[in-house]
């Protein structure tokens, strides 16, 4: 986890060049609105994440880091805009330099590039929420419950919890749909089976009706009946595999068709008649046959004629026209031949079709003859079939048809002798056989039943699997919801407790019993808060806007603490603290300082009082600040980087800038005495406009300080604490030296406050004023350089417990024995 030692910003947003030394400690950048403070926040956001939160989100359309990240004068020179952080990894103790330019915003340079530093940078990069702006704090408090859930889950990086929840819901639905589908498959498969069994019941398919239907067919085949039928029962059990069943009526139909075809081949005779007529025409004119043969040659010859010589035989002709006329006459004769050829081939095709039918019948009847032992008939049929096949295959050309003329003229079938008698005998034999149609049907029935029974079995298996998957998916979803809800409930309880505790710390004076409730329900996260013990209400119901802002900061801190745990070491709060009302700033500073002692807070504020409050409370060290006075386009922020007020005044004096030094000490004395009056409980006359006079405040502070020292002395005496007695005496001695000297120079202070007489002063005149003022304020300051806070009273007026500083180095007991 990184903390920031130093920042170097160049040509970035409103900043031309700026260096801040943070030393891995909390730091405040303060100045009026528009002085460039947020440029520092943007720079940190950018160097850590490559993005600028301010340039994204609602209302930032058309704005981008690349185009609008660089200073306006460098808008076309993105490479010049860069931010360099000197960082320290709190886990490994390693230091390094992290550089990112706007031109290559997606990546960064790390030196040295060690795994530890890279991991620390990656962690910061994954947590843009480390930078919190004022406009963001309230979104957790005032958001609608559904939106708050999203915001909080996004901040806590819980999106995946919901993603997985949605994924499991979708998977559960898929499993349910799969189960429904498999159930429908079972229903369909059972309906198909039921229809096959001719059952119209809706009872379980394993009932006696099924057994009855199956056993009825098994009985036809002479098979043993099945006692019961299970889902895996083989319905075809014991069926013999002895070839196709004999079908008497079909066999007789086939024999009669072949016999009829032999004796009454009417269609065949018509076809042969047409063929013979065409062949007769062909025989009558031998030139037609020649023309047919020469047709292609002559056609080619005409296309090749290019002179009075024949391209086919080279014979000379008187002219081209005569040659072409000769060839065209040949083609005309061949056209007649082509028509005759078509007739011949058409008739031949008809004969082939008829012969094909005969061949088919012969092939069907032949096995019947084999079955019935008519081997000779079968042999004759096979030879005859082969002969007819040969004739049919030959009838494909005019020449082949002409060659078969004799066969066609006499008897194209050439039925072998005794075939007709053999068929008659076969018909008689088969007629005498018993009818086997029933056994064939029964066998087919059982085969089909088995196929459908298998389908039922597989469908039921798929349904059973889908059913267990559906239950599993539901169990998985329920378990995840339970675990996630428990985890989130615990998480929100932790956040709720921390949030309430933080808010109570800030508002201990009037809301010491404050509590909040974060309630998760149906994707929403409700937030209700206690209102002065009267009841629980939404934050916006009765609390002021300042209180709501305070809740926003507290809720943010509670969430970020839960998110990062021990890794919470850095937070950038951009003008966030000004939301806390004036009366609770000290407590807020104490909360940050005491509850998050290891966190480096980088805070911006436009409120000077706030900046001083952070310093006086010890949250911010004296030198851990940068004050921005104003801003110009050309120069960027006008800033004062010397952290300590006395250092800055000394610098003014060194530069002979007496007016500057006088202005600073005047403003500082006004602010310091106001702080001290509050921290010591000094009494001043109440003013409704809170515009107290410096002299009045100073007098009250000095008087109260003296009174408290008297109490401390009395306490030391009562406890007989020599050491404490001496410590009080030392402070009193110091008072005796400092206060008269300061009062001696009081005239000058008054002039500084009320007039411009400092304009006539020289460095020598001013030095005593500066020294006495510094020594006076040191009376009320912890001497520990790392602390430097104002001293303050613990306990209510009249019952003061102690006078102490933030670190405890200055600690005087005020209670007597």
């Amino acid at each position: 986890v990184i903390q920031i030692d130093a920042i170097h910003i160049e040509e970035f947003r409103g900043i031309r060049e700026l260096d801040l030394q943070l030393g891995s400690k909390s730091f405040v950048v303060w100045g009026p609105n528009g002085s460039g403070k947020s440029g520092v926040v943007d720079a940190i956001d950018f160097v850590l994440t490559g993005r600028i939160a301010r340039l994204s989100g609602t209302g930032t359309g058309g704005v981008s880091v690349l185009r609008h990240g660089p200073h306006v004068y460098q808008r076309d020179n993105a490479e010049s805009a860069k931010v360099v952080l000197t960082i320290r990894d709190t886990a490994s103790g390693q230091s390094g330099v992290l550089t990112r330019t706007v031109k290559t915003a997606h990546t960064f340079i790390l030196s040295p590039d060690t795994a530890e530093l890279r991991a620390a940078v990656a962690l910061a990069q994954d947590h843009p929420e480390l930078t919190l702006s004022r406009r963001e704090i309230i979104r957790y408090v005032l958001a609608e419950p559904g939106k708050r859930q999203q915001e909080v889950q996004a901040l806590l990086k819980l999106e995946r919890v919901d993603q997985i929840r949605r994924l499991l819901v979708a998977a559960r639905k898929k499993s349910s749909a799969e189960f429904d589908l498999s159930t429908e498959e079972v229903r369909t498969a059972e309906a198909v089976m039921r229809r096959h069994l001719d059952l119209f019941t809706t009872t379980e398919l394993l009932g006696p009706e099924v057994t009855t239907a199956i056993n009825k067919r098994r009985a036809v085949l002479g098979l043993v009946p099945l006692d019961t039928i299970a889902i895996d029962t083989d319905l075809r059990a014991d069926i013999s595999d002895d070839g196709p069943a004999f079908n008497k009526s079909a066999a007789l139909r086939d024999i009669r068709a072949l016999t009829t075809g032999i004796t009454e081949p009417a269609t065949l005779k018509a076809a042969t008649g047409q063929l013979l007529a065409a062949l007769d025409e062909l025989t009558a004119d031998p030139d037609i046959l020649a023309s047919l043969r020469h047709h292609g040659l002559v056609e080619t010859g005409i296309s090749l004629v290019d002179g009075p010589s024949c391209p086919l035989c080279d014979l000379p002709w008187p002219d081209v026209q005569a040659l072409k006329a000769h060839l065209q006459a040949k083609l005309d004769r061949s056209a007649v031949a082509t028509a005759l050829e078509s007739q011949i081939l058409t008739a031949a095709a008809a004969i082939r079709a008829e012969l094909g039918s005969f061949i088919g019948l012969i092939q069907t009847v032949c096995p019947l003859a084999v079955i019935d032992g008519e081997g000779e008939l079968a042999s004759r049929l096979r030879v005859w079939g082969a002969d007819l096949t040969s004739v049919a295959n030959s009838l494909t050309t005019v020449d082949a048809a002409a060659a078969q003329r004799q066969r066609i003229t006499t008897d194209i079938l050439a039925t072998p002798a005794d075939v007709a008698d053999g068929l008659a005998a076969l018909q008689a034999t088969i007629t005498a056989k018993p009818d086997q149609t029933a056994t064939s049907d029964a066998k087919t029935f059982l085969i089909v039943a088995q196929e459908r029974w298998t389908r039922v079995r597989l469908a039921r298996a798929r349904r059973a699997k889908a059913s267990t998957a559906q239950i599993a998916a539901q169990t998985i979803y329920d378990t995840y919801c339970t675990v996630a809800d428990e985890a989130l409930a615990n998480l929100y309880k932790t956040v709720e407790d921390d949030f309430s505790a933080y808010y109570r710390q800030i508002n201990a004076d009037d809301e010491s019993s404050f509590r909040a409730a974060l309630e998760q329900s149906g994707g929403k996260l409700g937030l209700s808060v206690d209102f002065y013990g009267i009841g629980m209400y939404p934050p916006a119901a009765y609390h002021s806007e300042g209180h709501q802002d305070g809740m926003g900061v507290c809720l943010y801190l509670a969430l970020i603490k839960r998110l990062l745990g021990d890794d919470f070491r850095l937070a950038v709060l951009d003008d966030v603290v000004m939301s806390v009302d004036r009366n609770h700033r000290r407590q807020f500073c104490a909360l940050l300082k005491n509850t998050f002692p290891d966190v480096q807070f980088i805070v911006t504020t436009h409120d000077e009082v706030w900046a001083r409050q952070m310093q006086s409370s010890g949250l911010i060290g004296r030198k851990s600040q940068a004050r921005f006075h104003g801003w110009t386009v050309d120069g960027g922020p006008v800033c004062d980087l010397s952290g300590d007020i006395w250092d800055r005044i000394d610098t003014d004096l060194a530069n002979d800038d007496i007016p500057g030094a006088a202005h600073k000490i005047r403003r500082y004395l006004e602010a310091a005495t106001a702080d001290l009056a509050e921290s010591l409980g000094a009494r001043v006359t109440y003013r409704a406009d809170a515009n107290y006079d410096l002299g009045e405040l100073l007098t009250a502070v000095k008087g109260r300080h003296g009174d408290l020292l008297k109490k401390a002395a009395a306490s030391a005496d009562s406890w007989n604490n020599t050491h404490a007695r001496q410590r009080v005496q030392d402070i009193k001695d110091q008072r005796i030296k400092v206060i008269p000297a300061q009062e001696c120079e009081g005239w000058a202070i008054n002039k500084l406050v009320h007039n411009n007489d400092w304009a006539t002063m020289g460095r020598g005149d001013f030095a005593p004023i500066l020294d006495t003022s510094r020594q006076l304020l040191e009376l009320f300051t912890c001497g520990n350089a790392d602390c430097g806070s104002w001293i303050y009273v613990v306990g209510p007026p009249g019952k003061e417990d102690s006078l102490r500083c933030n670190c405890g180095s200055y600690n005087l007991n005020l209670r007597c024995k």
Partner: protein
Amino acid sequence: MSTIESEVLAAFLERIEASGKISSDVADGLQRMLIRDKLPSAEELARMITAGQGDALA
């Protein structure tokens, strides 16, 4: 995956395993699929759950 998300997922897988209601194949599949950066589709997840039910009945 954030720390909290990891904690939720780990607790879920532990609860699933301890329940004994989910087969080890499915539990392993859940761990494999839900831990990776890109979550599976609902179809992939449902297929894995179905496949994890075994084929004894078929």
